[in-house]
Each structure stands twice: as structure tokens, then as C-alpha cells.
């Protein structure tokens, strides 16, 4: 089954997000929503509902993204909702911000054909990883301690 994606991007990156959405849709993936949706494009309600309808969040990493509070909240929400997380770096010179780095999400470069070929596998692995680690968290540690996500900074 192809995963349903949620596209997380800074408001300033709407045009780049359009390109990515078209590319990824051509690869066979469906979108449940995105940070700044065009009116009428998605038949779900608010962003939270759109995220819940997806299994993987695709984050666009640009110069604008690190300062965008909506994207930061969506990254946090992807962990809360046990969703996979994949990063598409639109410009390979942009550093991965710490809070995104800490998630261990796969970072792929939009300008790399090799990385784009790998994108469907990365999306699938991200979804599997989220499911697996949610199971691990629910079972607790080896000694039976509760598994709790570290506090956010």
C-alpha cells in the first residue's frame, strides 16, 4: 500500500512545495494535506485532521523552514502521532536544524537524482520505523521502565 503523506513546509515555500507535491504524486503517493493548503485541495478539515489521515510527514528543508513555527509544531506532532518523518532538503547547503536532526529522520537532497530514486524506500522505511518504535515505546524498556520521549527544547 502506498503511504499517504502530509507535506510540511514554511509558508514562504509554497511554490517549492507545489513542485514536490507534483513530483511525489507522480511517484504514486497520495497526500492527505499540507501546511498551507490551497483552498479546496483537500477534503479534510484542519491540519491536525489532515496529519491523522497520513502515515508519513515529508518536511521541506529550506532557508525559511527553521524559523517557521508551524513546521516545528508539525515535526513534534509527527512524533506524538507515531508518524514517519522524511526530510527533503531543497538546497544542500542548508544545515539541518537541531530539533529536526534529533528526530533521526532520513535527509534526502531534492537536487540528487540518487536521493529521489531512494525517496519511496525512505518513506516506507520511515513509516515502518515509526510503527516499530511506537511498539517499543509501549512495551517499555528491557527493565520495564516507561519509555518517554525526551522533553522538547
Amino acid at each position: 500500500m502506498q503511504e499517504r503523506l502530509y507535506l510540511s513546509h514554511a509558508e514562504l515555500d509554497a511554490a517549492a512545495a507545489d513542485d514536490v507535491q507534483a513530483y511525489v504524486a507522480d511517484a504514486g503517493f497520495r497526500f492527505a494535506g499540507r501546511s498551507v493548503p490551497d483552498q479546496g485541495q483537500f477534503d479534510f478539515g484542519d491540519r491536525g485532521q489532515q496529519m491523522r489521515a497520513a502515515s508519513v510527514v515529508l518536511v521541506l528543508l529550506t532557508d525559511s523552514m527553521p524559523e517557521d513555527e508551524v513546521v516545528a509544531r508539525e515535526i513534534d506532532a509527527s512524533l506524538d502521532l507515531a508518524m514517519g518523518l522524511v526530510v527533503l532538503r531543497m538546497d544542500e547547503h542548508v544545515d539541518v536544524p537541531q530539533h529536526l536532526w534529533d528526530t533521526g529522520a532520513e535527509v534526502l537532497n531534492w537536487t540528487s537524482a540518487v536521493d529521489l530514486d531512494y525517496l519511496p524506500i525512505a518513506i516506507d522505511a520511515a513509516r515502518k520505523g515509526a510503527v516499530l518504535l511506537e511498539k517499543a515505546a509501549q512495551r517499555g524498556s528491557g527493565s520495564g521502565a516507561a519509555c518517554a520521549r525526551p522533553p522538547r527544547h
Partner: protein
Amino acid sequence: MNANVYAPPADPWVPVTDGGPAPEAYVSVYLSSPLARLPVRDVTRLEDNKSDPNLETSTYGLFSTCEPIMRTSIANRGIREIFFVTTIEGRGRALVGYYALGWSAIVDEGDVAFAASQSRFVDPIMVASLRGRAGKALQPRLRNFKIVDAPTATALRHAVDEHPDRTDDYLAEITRLERMSLSRTGFRYPSWDRKEPFSWDAAAPYLSDLNVAEDAPNSSPTGAWICAACKSRIVNRARLKVCNVCNARGTLIPEESH
């Protein structure tokens, strides 16, 4: 803490005997992560987080109880190379790298660990694509490990050496999986109750004081263990060397036989 206190050539590590021409080598199969772009060990395996092959310290058998028979045989036969093979989901079995062993250490009675003087991990070389001695050795069904003769070891080494060294990329992928686990469970290795990465800093409880471990198998029928020292119950498919709770070494006993 000075990490080198525990790294070779510090005690208890001793050089692997150079007994002249290279003898046989071992081929070792490990479980790789289905979540990783490169086939690193299965860091996030459910209730069985993997620590070997431990590329962070270039060791095998220091932190885990994996393959005790192979490790004993390596010591007894004076073997100086391990070639690593793993199955990649959807692609098949691949040769991925090797350790040239530099040191061994008796960490407990009957338990030997190895440290490599050189390690090299590369883009996976599909076993089906290997020709000659290398293909003949690896294409038959192989479960956990096997010995190969010196000419075959040479062929395998050449196959790996023909590819660019990506050991640093393997290390980066291990740390990425650790971060993924930490961000979602609060532990890099939840079944070990472990929040820190593996490193020589982490080796102290595994190398200090030669120990007489409890005589116990490597697996528990229930997947659970009882620590003979602190009585904690530990869930991990394979036996851990050190108790998650009290850090005592060699004290875990299968729950059923306790």
C-alpha cells in the same frame, strides 16, 4: 574519563597472534536494519536491540553475547579476519565489509571479544553477483557463520577492497537510527535501558575485572531474564552481558530456570 583506558592495546587486550601466513577466516552473518539506507546492524530490533558488529569501537563480542562459538573458534584457530554478510530486505544477501582483527580479550571465563586493527565497510556487494571462490563460498545457504580457506578470504578481501570505504557512512547511519529511537522512546537502545551510544567510554562494565559469569545459555525461552545480583527482570531476546539495572556482569539467568 580517559576512553583509551579501555581501548587496545590497554589491558586486557592482547595482540592477535601472527602465526605466519594468514590462516582461514570467518564469514559472519548479522541482522541488519530494515530502516537504514546502508545495512547497519539492527539497532532498533524490537526487544533485541543489536550492538554487534560494533563499528563505533571496531569490536565484536565486547558488548553482546553474539556468536560465542564463533568467537571461541576464532581464538582457538588464530583467525585474523571476519567478513560480514547480511540480508537486505527485498534485495537478498550481500557482502558488506570486514574486520582485520588486531586484538583479543578474555572478558569472562570462556568469553572472548575482538577488536579490529582495520575495518572496512562498503556499498553492499550482492552475493549473487560474486564470481569465483567468493561466490562459491557465499552463495550456498549460510545461517550464522562459516570458516573459509585462505584463498577464499583473499578473494573476499579483494572484493571489498575494490569498493570505496563507506565505514563513516555506516557509523552515521547507526547514530541516525539511535537518534530516531531516542526521540521516540527516550532510549537509544530501549531493550538495554541505554540512553548513551556505544563507545570506549561505555566499555568499563564490560572489561573491568575478569569475572566468573553465571552459567547460562544465550537465549531465554520466555525472552526474559532474572539478574542473580539484583533480582531485576530484564526482557531481551538475547542474553545481555550486563544487567540493565545494577550493571553487574554475567548475572542474567533465563527466567524459566530461575
